């Protein structure tokens, strides 16, 4: 009886690295296997067992064929896949960066200055739940059928998480930290820049990441507005001409690009908030 003492096990550094690498390879293999299983089930349902008609859901083989054909073929919607993708990226990125540039500072000031919060919050609470597609008619009347209307649809979708997360991040600043700053003679501005914003940075970056997803997802709605190019336009056209393969190519490309952008933003986020 008594306290059982365990002996500390010292694992050599090389062994630790091997273990970590092994775990990473295993995790990647599980992810790849899951994806392959989904594709296999998809193939089984369509080309394999013909449980679903090809006019209702295209098989993965057909989607891949259409993907490569659309790289060079402008028909049936007037542009190649690359042209559609670049057009969508332009709309999404302009709307997104506008949302970040306006939304993040606005959220910070709403949280830091009471008057700003009182002025902006009623309008913000009103518009935040309105879906982008509902704005279309109004935006056309005010801004016309050019790109401006589409940028604004994306902006409205992306600005909400930017404002919300920036606001929450600032509000979550611990009073103790602010008191310490005040004790050392820091003014309001200094407290904001040196204490509150660095504390809020992880939340702000989360909002920026969510906004990226929101802006990319809104592309389909934005491209209902007088588009002749774009992935959302391509999907709409595919729907109109009974081509589920084109619809699915559009969905897959939207998914892949969204994933790549999220990964890039993740790396940037880790670099910015490293050590905080």
């Amino acid at each position, binding site marked *: 009886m008594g306290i059982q003492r365990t002996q500390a096990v010292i694992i050599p550094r090389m062994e630790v690295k091997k273990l970590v690498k092994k775990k990473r390879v295993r995790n990647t293999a599980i992810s790849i296997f899951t994806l392959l299983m989904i594709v296999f089930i998809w193939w089984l349902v369509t080309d394999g067992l013909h449980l679903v*008609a090809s*006019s*209702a859901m295209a098989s993965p083989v057909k989607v891949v064929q259409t993907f490569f054909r659309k790289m060079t*073929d*402008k*028909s*049936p*919607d*007037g542009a190649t896949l690359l042209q559609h993708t670049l057009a969508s990226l332009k709309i999404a990125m302009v709307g997104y960066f506008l949302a970040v540039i306006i939304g993040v500072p606005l959220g910070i000031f709403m949280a830091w200055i009471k008057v700003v919060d009182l002025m902006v919050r009623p309008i913000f609470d009103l518009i935040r739940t309105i879906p982008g597609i509902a704005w*279309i*008619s109004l935006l*056309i*009347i005010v801004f*016309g*059928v050019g790109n401006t209307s589409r940028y604004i649809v994306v902006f409205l979708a992306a600005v909400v998480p930017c404002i919300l997360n920036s606001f929450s991040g600032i509000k979550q600043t611990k009073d103790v930290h602010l008191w310490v700053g005040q004790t050392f003679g820091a003014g309001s501005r200094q407290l904001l820049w040196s204490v509150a914003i660095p504390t809020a940075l992880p939340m702000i970056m989360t909002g920026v990441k969510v906004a990226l997803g929101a802006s990319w997802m809104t592309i389909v709605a934005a491209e*209902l*507005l*007088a*588009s*002749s190019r774009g992935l959302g*336009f391509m999907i709409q*056209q595919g*729907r*109109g*001409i*009974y081509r*589920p393969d084109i619809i699915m190519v559009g969905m897959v490309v939207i998914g892949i690009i969204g994933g790549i952008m999220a990964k890039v933003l993740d790396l940037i986020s880790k670099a910015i908030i490293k050590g905080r």
Partner: protein
Amino acid sequence: MKKLTAVILAVVMSVVCFAGCGNKTEPDNTVSSTPASSEPSETQPESKDFEQLNVACIVFSSGIPVLYAYDMGWFEEAGLDVNLEVFANGAAVNEAIAAKQIDIAVSGFASVYALAASECTWLADVNTTNSIAIYARPDSDIVTASGDALLGSAETVKGKKIITNLGTSSQYNVDTYLSQFGLTESDVEMIHMDYSTGYQSFIAGEGDLIATSNPYSADLDAAGYVNVGTLTATSGISLMDGCFARNAVVENRPEEVTLFLGVLLKAMDALQDEEVRFEYSLDKFAEIGNTYTEEGLRSEFTTTKYVGTEFISREDYVLGGAWVPIAEWLTTEGKISEENLPNIAKSIDGSFLCEASGINFKSYGE
């Protein structure tokens, strides 16, 4: 207390989930035909246990005969158990057909894609579509150019912004209009919008021309905008909206298909009376979310005629005559593949309507 709250919440959420996933009773745009009495009346044919027939129509003129027949109880009288669903456009109907949720549909231009996929049979024409047209503003330089059925010239049309719904009969209207002046889509700026958004944009001052259909054509006519070219004038083709069914339904339920077409023809004949059509259509369009002005609706009657018994009795009547030339154009646009083009002609079958009406007319390809 927390546990009790959590349990109550979980129960409420489960009940809501099951209620949401349960059988639908009467959704907004779905109507179901259930017999008022289980005993057949003297006017009813011999009662048979037909399965529910899922029928789709769209919120345009082509849907009115089906809706009229349903509201008059004629499907019920014919012994059919019809579940009627109203869709916003032909693309949505095609999706429902592909998912086998719809058995018979009355739709427009988008039907060609269902025929090309070799999954459906074109059974009957329902109405003419002379409302598909291109409009310009009264003060446009296009209007002052000479022309009889067509207004405009290569100089006045080139470089113009044309609002149109790409992939529909309106785009076909634009392409055939441009070809009259030796122009193509690359000589103008095509702005893609759905019909309602396009109409709002055009009257707000956007675009130089708009290619559209009813009810927007009727409203533009009534508001003084100038029709520069109908689809019939630009293409020489009389496109018809009509009725088609899934091949499986045509093969396995021919009696129901014939009965349905008989009722549809009866409704089209009844709606030849313009006052009957006006009274019914005005209220019904408002109900299904497609608002016409009285003036606009009257204007539509001049361009959109229901087919009816007299129409199919004409010696020169051919069922589905417009589809093949339209499909050939769609093939050049890459919207229908070359291998699917022959399916269009093979998908036209007037025999069911011949049996329902007692009139022998030709189908395309006969």
